[in-house]
């Protein structure tokens, strides 16, 4: 796989910021009351992430190592302010829906994390694709949560009615607790898939003759990784 495509795959699937890295939790839970808001927040973050990744990559040889974090913060905050103005001018409805969470993109750990771990070490072109990949991964995560919450809490997806009128919306899913529940279930499903994959994988790797005759069956069944490492 060539490099730009590899960055996209890495961001959207392999290191998906929402489900795998569990970064940027505040916007993930706060603005996903509907699929449109989730997608809007995701795309806004993507734009800022791509711009700041490119800018930081360009400046990576100029910024002294000791003051790099404040320098990154200034770059990110500048782009956030610019994007906020653009939203206010051209998409005021989205601006009202996202509210305080737009300026708070500055402290979204995904952006600083990518600046520190990728853009500060790689060229402009690859950093751009890294930003696009990570941003789209974030957008996919937010939209998915938004779709579930909107479907259960309102009976619609992207404001289009999909469930029949006889369905009584479970309002709690568009309120704060619903955000926690939906994310919990999505992570649990993902854990389930991952556990199954890992069991198959380790069985294949260790026991050529099948599991029944394998002496280490006790170990490999008990060796399934469950809990995820937590972010600070």
């Amino acid at each position, binding site marked *: 796989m060539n490099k730009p495509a590899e960055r996209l795959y890495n961001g959207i699937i392999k290191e998906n910021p929402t489900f795998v890295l569990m970064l940027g939790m505040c916007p993930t839970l706060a603005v996903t009351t509907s699929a449109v808001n989730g997608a809007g927040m995701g795309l806004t973050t993507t734009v800022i992430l791509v711009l700041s990744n490119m800018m930081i990559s360009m400046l990576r040889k100029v910024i002294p190592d000791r003051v790099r974090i404040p320098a990154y913060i200034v770059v990110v905050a500048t782009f956030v302010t610019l994007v906020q103005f653009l939203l206010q001018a051209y998409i005021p409805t989205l601006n009202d829906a996202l509210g305080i969470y737009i300026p*708070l993109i500055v402290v979204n*750990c995904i952006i600083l994390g990518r600046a520190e771990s990728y853009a500060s070490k790689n060229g402009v072109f690859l950093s751009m694709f890294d930003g696009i990949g990570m941003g789209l991964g974030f957008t996919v995560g937010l939209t998915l949560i938004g779709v579930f919450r909107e479907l259960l809490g309102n009976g619609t997806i992207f404001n289009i009615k999909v469930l029949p009128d006889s369905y009584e919306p479970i309002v709690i899913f568009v309120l704060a607790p619903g955000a926690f529940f939906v994310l919990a279930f999505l992570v649990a499903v993902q854990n389930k898939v991952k556990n199954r994959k890992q069991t198959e994988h380790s069985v294949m790797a260790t026991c050529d003759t099948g599991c029944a005759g394998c002496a280490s069956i006790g170990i490999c069944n008990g060796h399934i990784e469950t809990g995820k490492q*937590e972010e600070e």
Partner: protein
Amino acid sequence: MKELFLVAVGAALVNNVVLSQFLGLCPFLGVSKKVNTAAGMSGAVIFVITIATIVTWLINEFILIPFNVMYMQTIVFILVIAALVQFVEMFLKKFSQGLYQSLGVFLPLITTNCAVLGVAISNVTNGYGFVTALVSGIATSIGFAIAIIILAGIREKIEYNDIPESFQGTPIVLLTSGLMAIAFYGFAGLI
């Protein structure tokens, strides 16, 4: 006086910073394994938010508004908060070893705690006066402390429970927080 009390109850319980506004989730999920560390974190958060509220309010009122550069808010506030946290850390290290020992490790984490920036910005957007802003800042951070300490207490008990495999780790913590958020909805009747 009555108004201030309403602001305080609203910020601490009704619109709880974590459970209904989703600010400061990273430390809420990350440092809530033990009650002791959770209490240390909340101490540091109360400390930093109180000072940050005062400083950002003064900067906004006496620098940003007179010079008509309110659009610089985000940049100025985040830099001030980052510098402030550094300064508080150095100050504590020099003058109060005891406090530094208990809060020190948590301080660098707080720069990226969106609750601090969130309080500063919402004080400005709500147009609070100095005293109201201070009360809302302190109450918000106390709300954070209440939420994280309760969660840590529950998580210490969860350790001994038999949780379905897929729900171990993050999912069960999220479910617990969701139930807490429902419980905190009960406070809405207070105002």
